[in-house]
């Protein structure tokens, strides 16, 4: 399928524990088209980050991919050998990690961490074009523009592309130059190249993470809750920046978050995770207006409205579903939030929270 960038089929991931395997991703099918922004929503522990790490094949040891395939441009990532994998990583799919605090090595300067990535992959496509001043791009992209004046003659997008196409040949000097430009791109002063992670604010660290993710101009960038640790203003600035860059560079984005409202703003399509499975995949517009799965409805209802007089947020009762003893039945016909299932002998009395006796939140087992 040439029109699909990523085609995940029937993916299963288990965490091996002493009490037997715990399924973290259960027969998942998901696709990503070139240039689209796919939102992946779901609460903590529902398998979002596991999915991201499975795509990169960097799942930590107790997690094992037990089935399915992940086709990237038609090639199965799960079947690649180490060297193929190494070349595919970052060049084709890159990732911004969840924790801005922990994703950068504390004892290596941020510049070096960008440079070693560039050097590990050698050069990009041959192009002898030299980009105009990187600062201009930074200035243009800085939403609270403290940067120098932007170039009046070049559209922002072209300046970005130029920057990335600018040089070739994998020399350390080239890589440093490019690292500087990448910092420009995300609005971090160039002299921060020799800074260490602890010398940067949380927002800056996450921007470095984004600059790093763009270093090889990948076709997919996975954003794993990139703004969780940041305040809303910084979050907005960073998401804006990601959208601008995405529009200019045309990469696809897998945007993982538990913030459904934020996701609906920027995504083309949204996939909602619930207890290791996909509850619903739909275009953002459609999902916002007519969520089909009760769990999605519940999630949407849980966010406060910004309009005065809007409906009060309703939280979903109970605990997130345990993956150790997953709810047995699970599909769109299951009740997730707000309504007690009708016609069931075990139905709780009306008014009681609609979750089973073990406190597990929703989809109830089918009566057998």
């Amino acid at each position: 399928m040439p029109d699909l960038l990523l085609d995940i089929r029937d993916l299963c991931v288990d965490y091996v524990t002493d009490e037997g395997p715990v399924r973290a991703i259960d027969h998942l099918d998901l696709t990503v088209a070139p240039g689209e922004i796919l939102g992946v929503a779901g609460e903590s522990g529902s398998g979002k980050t596991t999915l991201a790490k499975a795509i990169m094949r960097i799942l930590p040891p107790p997690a094992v991919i037990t089935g399915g395939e992940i086709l990237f441009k038609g090639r199965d990532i799960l079947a690649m050998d180490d060297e193929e994998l190494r070349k595919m990583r970052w060049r084709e799919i890159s990732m911004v990690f969840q924790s801005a605090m922990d994703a950068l090595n504390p004892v290596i300067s941020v510049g070096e961490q960008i440079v070693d990535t560039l050097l590990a992959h050698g050069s990009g496509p041959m192009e002898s074009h030299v980009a105009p001043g990187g600062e201009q791009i930074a200035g243009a992209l800085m939403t609270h523009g403290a940067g120098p004046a932007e170039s009046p003659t070049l559209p922002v997008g072209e300046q970005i592309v130029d920057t990335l196409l600018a040089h070739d040949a994998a020399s350390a000097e080239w890589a440093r130059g490019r690292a500087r430009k990448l910092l420009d791109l995300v609005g971090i002063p160039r002299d921060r190249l020799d800074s260490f992670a602890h010398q940067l604010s949380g927002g800056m660290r996450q921007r470095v993470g984004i600059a790093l993710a763009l270093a090889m101009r990948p076709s997919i960038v996975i954003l794993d809750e990139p703004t969780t640790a940041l305040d809303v203003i910084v979050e907005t600035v960073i998401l804006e920046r990601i959208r601008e860059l995405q529009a200019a560079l045309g990469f696809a984005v897998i945007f993982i978050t538990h913030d459904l409202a934020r996701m609906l703003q920027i995504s083309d399509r949204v996939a909602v995770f619930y207890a290791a499975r996909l509850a619903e995949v739909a275009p953002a517009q459609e999902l916002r207006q007519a969520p089909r799965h009760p769990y999605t409805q519940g999630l949407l209802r849980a966010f406060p409205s910004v309009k005065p007089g809007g409906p009060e947020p309703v939280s979903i009762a109970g605990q997130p579903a345990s993956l150790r003893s997953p709810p047995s039945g699970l599909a769109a016909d299951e009740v997730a939030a707000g309504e007690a299932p009708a016609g069931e002998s075990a139905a709780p009395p009306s008014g009681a929270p609609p979750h089973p006796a073990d406190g597990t939140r929703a989809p109830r087992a089918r009566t057998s």
Partner: protein
Amino acid sequence: MRYLLKRLGFYLLAAWVAVTLNFFLPRLMPGDPATALFARFRGMLGPEALDALRETFGLTDAPLIVQYGTYLGHVLKGDLGISVAYFPAPVLEVIGQGLVWTIFLAGTSLIVSFTIGTLLGVAAAWWRFGRVDTFVPPAAALIGSFPYFWLAMVALYVFGFRLGWFPLGHAYSDYVTPGFNVAFIADVARHAVLPVGTVVIATLGGWLLTMRNTMVSVLGRDYVNLARAKGLSPRKVAMRYAARNALLPSVTGFGMALGFVLGGSLLTEIVFSYPGQGYILVQAVRSQDYPLMQGIFLVITLAVLGANFIVDILSMWLDPRIRDSVS
């Protein structure tokens, strides 16, 4: 830089306290070195000789504070008095001789043990549950839990006495001339194999386990995952991103061990009759050689302080977070 100066100041203060204690402790103990030495010569010396000896050791009837002043002056000049056991060699000279062998023996053991242990730790953590990880740490822990002197004596018995592969003691044979020649160096190396080997085997496990455990937890960090995801070569991920960070606690341990190197590996030197600092210390205790003991304690104290200072510098160099938190 200001931080380092501050640390240096602290170490100087600590050194002064050590020197002062060194002065008072022997004076609080019964008996004095002059009497001890006098007794050794069994009446062959006259009473006026005893007074002369007291004079040499600084044990005058002058008030304590004056004695203390003289003592400090002597220490600063490097004059630690005359050894009783090796009479009439000055303490500094005796210590100097022992120090050379100790630095060679314990230093080599420490560096070899640290390097091999740490690298094995890296390997064990990287290939977790692999062959290295399954067999080496338990084996190292087992050997490390034997009493060291027992291990050393067994090695000496088997490889030195039974098989005759290595000499039974001393730093070099009588028939080689000390100096910078092949025969001497080869002989010294042959003599060092058993002492160094046993120390390395006994201490390897500590370095290995420290490194392995820190490395295992570092490998779970996101920056290592990120390094892997970036498509860096496995070697680079293991060494530059994981091992580099996991090394920090080991470096502290290395510094501490370095300080104790100069104290001499007492047991090693006794079992293998190796003429190092530890061996000399035992001789000093046996013959109530106070000046020598004092001298050795002083050297050990200064060495520990010096090693700590080196660790301070080293960890500042290795860890930018420390660099910033102090400046």
